[in-house]
Each structure stands twice: as C-alpha cells, then as structure tokens.
C-alpha cells in the first residue's frame, strides 16, 4: 500500500485526496480562501468578521441539512429557498415583535415545511417527474403565495428575545454568535438521522441502487418522501433563524439559498447521482461558500462582477469534485 502511494505523483496524490476526503478538502479550500481575504484586506481579520462567517455558515449548514439527505437519497430539492423565505415571513407575522410566541411559530413553520416536503415527495415519487422540475414548480407556487397572502409586503418583526437568542454573543465573545446553540441541536440531530439511524442507512442504499434497495425490503417510496419532508422542515427552521438574523422579512428574502444549499452540498462531496455524501462535507461546503463570498466582497467587486466570479469558481470546484472515482467495474 505504501509503495503504491509513493509511486504516485504529487498531482495524482492530491487528486486522490480530493476524491477520497472531499470534506477535509473543502475545509482546506475555505482556509486558503480566508487567508487570501486577509492578505487582500487585513482589516477583515477581526472577531466580529469571524462571528459573521460563523453565523452565515451555520445558517447555510442548517438549510443544507435536508438538501444533503435528499441528494444522498437520489433526489434534489430546489424548494429550500422558497420554504426558508416563507418561514421567515411566518416568523415576523406570527411574532410581530411579541415575545412568548416561539412555540406556536415553531409548530406553524415546521408544519408548513413538512407539508411542502410531503408534496414534493409525493409528486416526485408517485408521478415520477424529475425532482428538479417538481420542486421548482412547487417552490414557485409557494413564492407566489407569499405575495398573495402578504400583498407583497410582509408585516412585523421577529420577537426581541428570539433575535437575541440568535445574534447575541456567547460569553461576550464577538466570534461566538449564539446561533451556535441552535447548531448544537440541529447538527447532532442530522448526524443521528444520517449516520446512526436505520433511516439514514436506508437513504444511502436507496440513493446508490433503488432497485436493489426495494427488492431488499426497503420501502423506497416512503423513505424518499421522508427525505423531502425533512428537507422542508430543516429549511423552515433555517428560515426562522434567518428572520431573527435579519429582524424583518420580505418576499423571496432567502430564495438564493435554493442554489447555495445545492452547491454547498456538492462541494462537500455529496454526489449528484445519489448514494454518496456526508453532512460534515455539507458544513464544510457551506463554509467555502460564505468565505468565498467574503473574499469577493473584500476585493471590492461590484455585485454583478461578484456573481460572475462566484459562478466561475463554482464551475471549477464542481469539475474538480464530481469526477467519477475509478473502481473495478
């Protein structure tokens, strides 16, 4: 084994590393990108800047949790953004700056997310349409509903205590936003679901070989629908936290998370074809997305130029990541 390794060139070895441990690779890329940012603008190396990276990374990680599960199960959820936006509007409308409405809100938001997920799941599984089209169509309906139900301008603000629970600094430290406490609940929950529960293992089998999974006794329709339900619920929760972070909400406020969550998950090494991937990778991928966006801001680029660069860098990363690994056929 050692002799095998030593005969490889540096390039081959780094390629192997990238393909075998995409999560670690993503963390390394994030660190490099951050180092470049600091070199370009030394002022950006401070506690509050790091705190904002942590905040945005956790927000994207939570939004990506369901996306990760769906993608591993062989599907795709383009409705994450619309569900987040809707949950944000629910948050400001229900709370309307009043404390003590967290649990009714939680119930309403999660039910909304679960319902949308259920719809996505049933339409993909029972009608057999490609998930990209189904989830886009349904997310479109939800987005329009935001305008219909709010007349285009959602009212209210998140409650002060909820805002505080997301944005205050732990131990007074600028780089520890209290959203970390929510992360400490959600992240272990996702790890339990994916890696330690029977459900997670069924998702991996389903994504890798649905025919075999079915004949092997996995109720594949049920599992697939459940992946979408989880995706809707995690997205809804992320939308609530997002509303607290932004204080107020507007229609389509988090729509870009549909795209961002998908890219973060893929940078994290989850395969488009299903059956392969980790949540650690998705967290790392979220970090890359946030740091990259920071870097482009630090370079002083205008928003349109930034988007162009973002797109180009994404394409490069995706090419590097999604190469099929060579195995015995």
């Amino acid at each position, binding site marked *: *084994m050692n002799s*095998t390794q030593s005969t490889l060139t540096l390039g081959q070895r780094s390629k192997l590393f990238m393909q075998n441990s995409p999560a670690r690779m993503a963390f390394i890329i994030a660190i490099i990108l951050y180092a470049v940012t600091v070199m370009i603008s030394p002022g950006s190396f401070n506690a509050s800047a790091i705190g904002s990276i942590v905040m945005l990374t956790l927000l994207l990680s939570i939004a990506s949790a369901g996306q990760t599960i769906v993608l591993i199960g062989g599907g795709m959820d383009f409705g994450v953004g619309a569900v987040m936006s809707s949950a944000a509007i629910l948050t400001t409308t229900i709370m309307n700056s009043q404390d003590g409405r967290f649990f009714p809100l939680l119930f309403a938001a999660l039910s909304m997310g679960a319902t949308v997920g259920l719809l996505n799941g049933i339409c993909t599984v029972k009608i057999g349409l490609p998930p990209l089209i189904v989830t886009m169509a349904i997310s479109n309906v939800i987005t329009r509903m935001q305008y219909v139900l709010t007349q285009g301008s959602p009212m209210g603000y998140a409650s002060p205590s909820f805002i505080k629970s997301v944005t205050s600094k732990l131990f007074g430290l600028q780089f520890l936003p209290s959203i970390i406490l929510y992360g400490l609940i959600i992240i272990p929950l996702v790890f*339990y*679901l994916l890696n*330690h*529960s*029977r*459900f997670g*293992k*069924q998702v*991996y*089998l389903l994504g*890798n*070989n649905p*025919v*075999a*999974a*079915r*004949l*092997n*006794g*996995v*109720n594949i329709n049920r599992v697939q629908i*459940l992946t979408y339900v989880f995706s809707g619920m995690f997205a809804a929760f992320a939308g609530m936290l997002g509303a607290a972070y932004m204080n107020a909400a507007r229609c389509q406020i988090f729509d870009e998370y549909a795209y961002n969550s998908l890219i973060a998950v893929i940078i994290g090494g989850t*395969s488009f074809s299903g*059956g*392969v991937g980790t949540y650690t990778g998705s967290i790392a991928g979220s970090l890359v997305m946030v740091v990259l966006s920071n870097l482009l801001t630090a370079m002083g680029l205008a928003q349109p130029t930034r988007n162009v660069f973002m797109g180009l860098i994404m394409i490069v990363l995706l090419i590097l990541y999604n190469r099929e690994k*060579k*195995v*015995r*056929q």
Partner: protein
Amino acid sequence: MFELRGVDKRFDAVVALNNASLNVKPGEVHALLGSNGSGKSTMIKILAGLVNPNAGEILIDGSPVEIRNGYDSRKLGIATAFQDLSLIPTMSVRDNILLGNEPKNALGLVDQRASDEIISRLLERFQIDCDPDDYVQTLMPSTQTMLEVAKAVALKPRLLLLDEVTAALHYDEIQVLFSVMRELKEEGIAMVYVTHRMNEVFEVCDRTTIMRSGESVITGPMDDFSLDDIVYYMTGQRPDKSKKDVVHSHSDGGREIVLDVKNLSIFPKVHDISLRAHKGEIVGIGGLQGQGQPELIRAILGAIRYEEGEIIYDGEPSTFKLPSKAVKNGMGFISGERNREAVFPARTVLENILAGKVAKGKTFAYMPAKANRSFAQSAVDKYNIVIGSLNHPASSLSGGNQQKLVVARWIAMQPKLLLLDDPTRGVDIHSRLEIHEILKECANDGMTILISSSESEELLSLCDVIYVFYEGCVSAQLTGENKTPEKLVAAMMGMSEDHEIVSTMEAKA
C-alpha cells in the same frame, strides 16, 4: 500471435493483475480460466481497451502496440463479446450490428443493399430468429447474447474475445456458437474464451491459461489437464475427496407448510402454477431461461402483482404489496443479477452486509456502530469473503465475493423463507460450492429455501424437490429417484413423461 507480457493493474488498493501474461495463436481457441476475482475479466478489458494497465506490454506478431481505448483495440483487429452485452437496447438489430462499421457506397452513404446482405448472412450463420428491424430490447436475453457474439464476428477480427457468453445461452444455441467457433478456427482467427463451465472448455478449447489472484499460473494444451488439475491451479488446492459434504436429509412427514402457492397466474409469463415448500426444505425451480421463474419468485416477494391464484405463506394468505412487507414478515431475497438487484457498489462492504438488517425494523431506531461492525465482521469471517477492509466499497470486490456478500447479508438475518433467483450466475465453482454448503446448513437448521437456477447440477445436488417450468407451467415435479439429469433436461424441453418424448420424436419423423 497476440501477447500480453508482465501486465499489472491496480484499482486503488486492490491488485487485479500482477505480472500476468497471455499468448494466443492464430487459429486456436484459448481458454482463460480462473475463479472470480482472478483477473480474467480485467485481461479481457485490457485487450478490449476498456482498462489501461499500470505496467506491462502488449505485443502483436512480436511488435509492441498500445491499446488506449476501444477504438485502438478495434483498429488492431480485436473484437469482444461482453458478458454484460454492448448492445444498445433502443436500437434495431441491424443498427446494432453495423454500428461504426456500416458498408458505404460511392457517395459515402450507407449502402442499404450491402448491409441487408451482411445482416441476413450473419443471422443465418448464428441461427438467430429475429427481424433485422426488431429493437434489441424486445428480444430474449439469450438471443441478445447471440447477437452480441454475431456483432463481434461481423467486425472480421483477428482476435475474438468471448467473455462468459454462454452463461445466458440455451443448449442448442451453445452448439451453434461452437460450430461457428470451429469455422472461425479454420479461418485462422484467434479466440480467447472465458467461462465457468468446464465441460465446454474440454469440448471446444485447444489451449488454456489458468489464473489465480491476478497472476497467470500456467499455460498449456488442454489435453495436458484434467478437471482436478484445473481446480488445483485455480485454487491452489487439490480437490479434497475425503472432505464430507454437508448432508441435507429430507423428510416432509408432518412438517408445517411454509409456502403454498395455488394456481398462480401472472400475465403474461406464468399460468396456473402450484407449488409447496415445507419447513427446512430446499425447493428448486428449474427450466430454460424465461419460463416464468423470476416472475414467480417476485410475486411471492410482493415485488410484482399476480392476476389469479393464491399464495399462502406461514399459514396465512399473503397479500404483500411491497417487498418491504414480505421482508418484515421473515422473507429474504437473493438475486443473481447482482449489479442491478443486489449490490450497492458505492457503499462499503459493511453497509452491504448490513442491508438486510437496515431494511427490517423501526425506521428511526438507533443502530450502534459497534454492533454493526461485529455483525459484518462475523459474516465476513464465517463465509470466507475476501475483502480489503470493511470500509472499502463493495465495487472493490470480485464478482464471486460480491455475490457471497449478498448471500451473507440474508443468511445472517435467518429468514423463515429464503428466495433465490439464480444466485450463482457467473460465480466460480469454488464460491458456488461454498454457497451451496451454506444453504444446506441453513435448511438443516430449519430455513425454507426456494431456489431458481439455470444450472441443472446445482438443482440436482441441492434440492429436495425440483419443479420444472416450461412456458409458465410446471412440466414436471421431480423428487427422490426421479431427480436425474435426463428427466430434468427432458422436462426443461417441455417433455414431462417418457411417452411424450417418443410421441414428439415420432411427430418430427
């Protein structure tokens, strides 16, 4: 003269070939033999240009050549008939055969008349009964395999590679294939023949190269080898005659009936089938390919619906609409179509073994990592599965070991009724015998086993009762002294009683 010298090939940590060599002379059929995972297929793929070796050289008539891809291989006069077929299902027979090799007229367009002639001659030579405009996906699996060979021969190669093509063929088709191979031999074409069926090797091959764990162990004329020699070179051990086989004793007096299928019909393949399996019994389903065996098994599992009849499982009418229901109620299913229906190639060995346990039980229940690991490790140890590590992907294992993985997955679950659909297809003798021993032990412990197989010897040596299917009906039920190869073959051809054989022959005369 085609030669491979000192070829190495690694797939990550797995060594598929280690200093392997092969030389094939014009006008000979060269048998390439070895257990699953010995590197036969990799050798074929190197010559076909699908796999590039890490080291070693390829020589044609003494001069080194490079085969980087399928196009190079074809240009050098090499044609391959693959086990898993290289036909395009949604194209016609004609287009498949001529693909990339169309006869052209003066204007550079496809010459319709010339191509018609090529096709009809080829179909006649291989005695393939189909219309050139039929889509390949509508043909029987065995016809598709014949087409695969015909397509390779149509390229007029100097070297023809045949990778386990007879696995899916009927007896008469194999004879046609052999006569074509003998003609090609006369024409001076070199052939490499890969198979697990030893009787074919002695019938048609001139020389052999035997492989073991990626190395070519020995090469020599076929006449120098006995069957025992071949097994010795393949496994490194002399077949142990003194070793006691597991004896599966059978008596169904008063034992409970686990499975009772009554007058089952599944459109369009199965008509009015009844069969019965008792506790601890091994029930075989025989027959040529495509006589409704897979459909019956899948109907019992709940994977497909049936129109008429009744399935009584464990004393109650079973109404399983999904395999997951059947599995929850103690069934297990092992498919021989491992790539499509059994193995999870990207997942680890551990997860593949665990798949049965994963399918059964509370959805959100905790599955402790330590218990999973020891469950998988004990299965690997018990069934001698050759793996690199429990964490390697299943795709890193050889075919035979992948199949053992699937068998271990279900045996470890101790199902009440185990369904097997041609479980040893493409599995080498050695692993096959191991799987048989495992099944017999399980039956002795009270497991009921329903096994469909295309191999007569497998059914005869394993089963207490054999139901022979012919065109969706049971043409014979063989038990005890009736279990003879002759009766089995006769029933497979649809001749259920001796006098019927006579009457059919008279009718022909």
